[in-house]
């Protein structure tokens, strides 16, 4: 899944929807005063994008746990490439551990993530094509 190029409008829309009004994400003057080149996206916006990939691949209802680790900032103009990198056995036969990530087009890792997915619900999602 590819998302972008990211715009300041995308960031501001997410700020309003989610309630994160840290000026580092919408005020270029403030961001530059901290030595940054400008505003950057909230890590959680990228996490939201990754949740779309999870939903598209496995169905959100099958997700038991979702963990994201923020590795690098995402800047306006960048396009995120979201991938499912591995599907491993979980602790129970009914669960799988899914490794996924978001990177820019140069391959710089932005977010690494892991999801515990209930395989039963996942199967029903993919066969019925619902949700």
């Amino acid at each position: 899944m590819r998302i972008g190029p990211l715009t300041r409008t995308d960031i501001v829309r997410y700020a309003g929807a989610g309630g994160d009004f840290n000026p580092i994400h919408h005020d270029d003057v403030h961001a530059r005063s901290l030595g940054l080149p400008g505003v950057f996206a909230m890590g959680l916006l990228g996490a939201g994008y990754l949740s779309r990939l999870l939903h598209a691949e496995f169905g959100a209802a099958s997700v038991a746990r979702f963990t994201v680790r923020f590795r690098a900032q995402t800047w306006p103009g960048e396009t995120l490439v979201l991938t499912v990198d591995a599907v491993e056995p979980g602790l129970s036969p009914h669960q799988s551990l899914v490794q996924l990530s978001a990177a820019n087009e140069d391959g710089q890792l932005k977010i690494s993530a892991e999801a515990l997915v209930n395989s039963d619900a996942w199967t029903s999602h993919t066969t019925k094509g619902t949700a």
Partner: protein
Amino acid sequence: MADTVAPTRRGAAEPPAFITEFVFPVERGKIAEFARSIGEDSRIHHDVDVAVAAGYADVPAPLTYSVVSAHFADASRTGGAYLAEELGMDMDRVVHGAHEWEYHQPVVAGTTLRATMSLVSDERRAGRRGGEMRVVVREVVYRDSVGTTVLTERITAIETEKTMGA
């Protein structure tokens, strides 16, 4: 900031320390708005008929929807002000390190969740540049009207060794 406060370090073995609690109403309009902000156009978040046909009581929230609680919580307790004022963290060096959600029950529109935020751990670790970084984990447990845990959220804030832009 950091040198004027001597916070108690909290190890993972200690019980979580209460920070704050708040009420978080889950609303259809806010779910649709949040879904749109992450580009999630699945009709299940926008159309109650689709949601009911899929077996939900009402429109379900996207997986990361709990961040919307920022609109309903007291930011002086849940936001950076808490980290700065109560824990003495230098916010110019604090980054959002990780975030985790554990899903116990579907979060659907029309329910009112009661959230309790706690400090889970506050630890110093060796940083890659030879200095020290500080890792603070907070947990929010969201319960429904009868007290059943619906969602658990863990937020990791990291005070890095130097300022972000330096």
